[in-house]
């Protein structure tokens, strides 16, 4: 295992900014409203990524303040106040009162230093609707920074809700506060899933659902999923979970500090993501040993095994494709934990050798844990690990390694096409033209069916000699 870490000043890798992380998190809260205080180029990026929460979820409006050049000189607080008041009052008039409003900034507004906190406080007092203002420029950090900002605020709400007696607006009772008194369950072996959108899978919504199904099957209660189809009032139940499971292993510094203050633990064990059979078995049984029922975990695993075997045993197509992909070489460019787990899955489950593994991590913990996971396959295959590589470096390593295909996100597809390397998008986000409309996981035992289907497509691309068939077409010799 050869590990290369760039020492260059420049960076060219997948790293959406803080406001994208905060938008993705906030748009997983039902009945939320996002006011985007920034330049429209940033706004369109945020609204595009909001799309990730839409399939199987909800549509959370992102309303722009329409900051322009003059506002960047003279300040845009008045515009923010106007947008907040107009948006909230229109919502109240239409009886679609948001339970929470987020004001998110991008770079220009943050540098100008508009007083977003005061604007939020003023409008909150006027309308009675909770307004949270967060400074989330791209220069402050990436997805993790923005995610941390929103999650931390949610926990602060949770910790201070008792101090707040009543809402100001008579028709708005801040439902989440009013209903936050009674505990929902008394299962002390439950966990909260944290930041599923950082998972690194383009199929993250369905993959998270599968993880929940498996955990529940192993008698582990999933208390909250922060934030996917999340009811804000449920934040009061946050501390009922014994553990918080940060799916990506990225360190959410402020959030974890508040968790610690609340006596709520973070899962510290370095578990692979449940991609493929071997990873899933390890993942679920370790969770079950700690929090649930090993017997029940085995039961659901066996049931899923039967489901998968029913599809694949004595199946000529499965045998053909499994044999074709065996021993082939690939590259991976993905979020650290997802990439490392996928590399193990490809090698163990399919016999595909991951020759180049590009890991993208924003924090040291994610990087460290991914490398630890890869240590388990270092004696089975020779491969190079690139930590936060530039696309240029990654492409060059793919060429040198003579991989048959590469797995990444849609954004690096043209890089691979340029190098004449077939490419499969499994990583990144759902947004921007990932055409999978079937709500089926890539994770878990059942997910191997999805993975097989996806891998088969790239095998066809790699090994069908389309150009030659076209050149040799019937009429070509006439």
């Amino acid at each position, binding site marked *: 295992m050869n590990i290369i870490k760039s020492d260059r000043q420049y960076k060219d890798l997948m790293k959406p900014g803080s406001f994208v992380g905060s938008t993705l998190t906030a748009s997983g809260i039902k009945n939320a409203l996002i006011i985007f205080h920034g330049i429209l180029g940033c706004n369109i990026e945020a609204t595009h990524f909001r799309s990730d929460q839409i399939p199987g979820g909800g549509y959370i409006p992102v309303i722009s303040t329409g900051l322009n050049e003059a506002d960047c000189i003279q300040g845009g607080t008045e515009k923010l106040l106007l947008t907040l008041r107009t948006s909230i009052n229109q919502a109240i008039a239409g009886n679609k009162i948001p339970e929470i409003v987020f004001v998110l900034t991008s770079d220009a507004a943050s540098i100008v230093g508009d007083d977003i906190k005061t604007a939020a406080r003023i409008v909150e007092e006027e309308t009675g609707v909770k307004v949270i203002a967060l400074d989330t420029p791209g220069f402050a950090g990436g997805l993790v920074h923005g995610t941390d900002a929103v999650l931390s605020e949610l926990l602060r709400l949770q910790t201070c809700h008792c101090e707040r007696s009543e809402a100001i607006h008579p028709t708005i009772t801040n439902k989440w506060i009013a209903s936050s008194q009674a505990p929902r369950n008394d299962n002390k072996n439950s966990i909260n899933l944290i930041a599923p959108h950082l998972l690194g899978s383009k199929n993250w919504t369905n993959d998270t659902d599968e993880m929940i199904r498996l955990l529940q099957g192993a008698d582990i209660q999933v208390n909250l999923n922060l934030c996917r189809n999340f009811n804000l009032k449920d934040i009061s139940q946050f501390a009922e979970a014994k553990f918080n499971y940060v799916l990506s292993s990225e360190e959410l510094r402020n959030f974890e500090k508040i968790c610690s203050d609340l006596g709520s633990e973070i899962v510290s064990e370095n578990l692979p993501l449940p991609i493929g059979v071997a990873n899933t078995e390890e993942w679920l049984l370790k969770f079950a040993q700690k929090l649930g029922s090993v017997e029940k975990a085995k039961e659901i695993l066996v049931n899923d095994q039967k489901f998968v075997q029913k599809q694949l045993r004595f199946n000529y197509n499965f045998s053909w494709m499994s044999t074709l992909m065996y021993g082939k070489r690939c590259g991976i460019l993905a979020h650290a934990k997802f990439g490392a787990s996928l590399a193990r899955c490809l090698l163990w489950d399919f016999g595909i050798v991951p020759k180049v593994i590009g890991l993208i991590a924003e924090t040291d913990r994610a990087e460290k844990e991914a490398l630890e996971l890869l240590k388990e396959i270092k004696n089975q295959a020779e491969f190079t690990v690139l930590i936060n590589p530039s696309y240029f470096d990654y492409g060059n390593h793919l060429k040198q390694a003579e991989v048959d295909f590469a797995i990444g996100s849609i*954004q690096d597809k043209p890089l691979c096409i340029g190098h004449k390397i077939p490419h499969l998008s499994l990583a990144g986000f759902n947004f921007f033209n990932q055409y999978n409309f079937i709500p089926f996981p890539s994770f878990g035992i059942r997910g191997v069916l999805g993975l097989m289907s996806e891998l088969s497509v790239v095998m066809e691309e790699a090994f069908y000699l389309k150009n030659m068939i076209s050149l040799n077409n019937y009429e070509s010799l006439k």
Partner: protein
Amino acid sequence: MNQCTSKKLLKAGYKWIKVSEMVDETPPVTASCEINKRFPGYGGLWCKLIMAVTSYAMTKNSVAVIHGPNNCAWAVRNFCSTNYSLYYGNSFLHMPTTDIDQNSVIYGGGEALIKTLKEVDKDYKPEHICVFDTCSTALIADDIQTAINIAQSKCITKIDYIPSAGFTSIPLGKSIEEITVKYADMMDSPSEISENTVNILGQYKEQQDSSPVKCQGKRDGSGGGCGKGRGKYPDDASELTRIIEALGLKVHRILISGNSDYIKSAPQAAVNVISCPTWGIPLAKMMKEKFNTPYLKHCIPIGIEATSKWIRELADFTGKHQEAEDFIKQEVSELQEIFEKTKNLVKGKAALIECGRNSQTAFARPMALARALRELGMMPYLFGLHPVELKAKESDVGYFLWDGFNPQILTGNYPYQQPVDITEVVKSLDLEEGQYVYFTQDVFPMAKAGVFDAENIPRVETGVHLRRVINAPGRGVGFRGAKALYQNIIEVLKFSSGNKKATLYGRVHGEFYEFGRK
């Protein structure tokens, strides 16, 4: 036809007026206070950085250095790597960033830029580097040109700079105008002019090269009018090249395309012709000013009449009258039957042309389409264009008005990125089903089964990125574009008149089953 605006649109302040009137009554794009007051929430669509870098993505063997946070490059990457590359064939654009953080925002990022440029020069060994700044580095006033000058002395690669801070020049037309002229800075004064050579300006998204285009198409539809590597789905430049070569002229450069040397030598052409006016006219004017390269006025020739005018203007300039008339006669005669058939089907109908749906920015293409539809005897009505975006497209407006084309357009205080309800647009024109055709330009076309769907309302998709017709250019220019447009119109009319089953798209947004319909 009564053009009294329906009550709902009237209440919201909308009205049908001529394009020239909408331009006149819209405040200048620099009048921030007035714009803020009249169009609260308006702030453009894409930022200047996105437009600047995506234009540079059409160049070859180049590296875009983004002086700003990594996120800014990532925002551009989404467009470059998906839409622009995968659908238009552009190569993967490397865009390393200086990745400035909170410290750099306070202390400045000049040193990071110098270091990055040196590293990029050494690692990537590109033929050209262009620096793009961002909101952050512009607001903190980094001295980018000085940093470039310092780095240039240590670098082999030529480094240029396109100012592109996202908060500047927010209306799309304005930002494009400022970006496109910067490519003239990358050109050298010509030592000689090549006779009978033509540059095509105004190419955006679709990377081209100077490979000659074969006029003869293959039976599978590829080859004819197709640029190298573009296969069955040619671009506008392919069709314009076919025309230029048919006149016995040679295409010298298609801009923006090619590598640094290709762009540098563009002023050697005898004349510039224009495809898209938004990108083409400002660059043509700048090349005229800097290199005295003449340019022709006709742009974006969609339809037989517009294409013929575009060709004749070129023939007038180059003295290729006979070749032009022979070519036009031949091409028009081949189109005559389908033209007449289409005309008979649509004459007297209204053409409802949406200017970009959510984006509210498209103008030149809808106008050129409208002009072609008028030729078919239709009454064009444009809607969904934000007034500020129209105002920012000075060159486009000037061209169409000069050409005597000034159709009706729906003006009003468009809420930002919220399309007007087309059923209300229809009501405002007192139209009945069967009296109009809906022309869309982008994603999210209006469709509600049971009310307004392709099953009952003929819908023609004309967006460059989504409309793909074998052997016809994306924007529909030239004779081949006209033929494809007529074919599409005939097909959608047939679909809507003969087929009474709603599309899935319409069902998802409207009444799903027939049994649920009122």
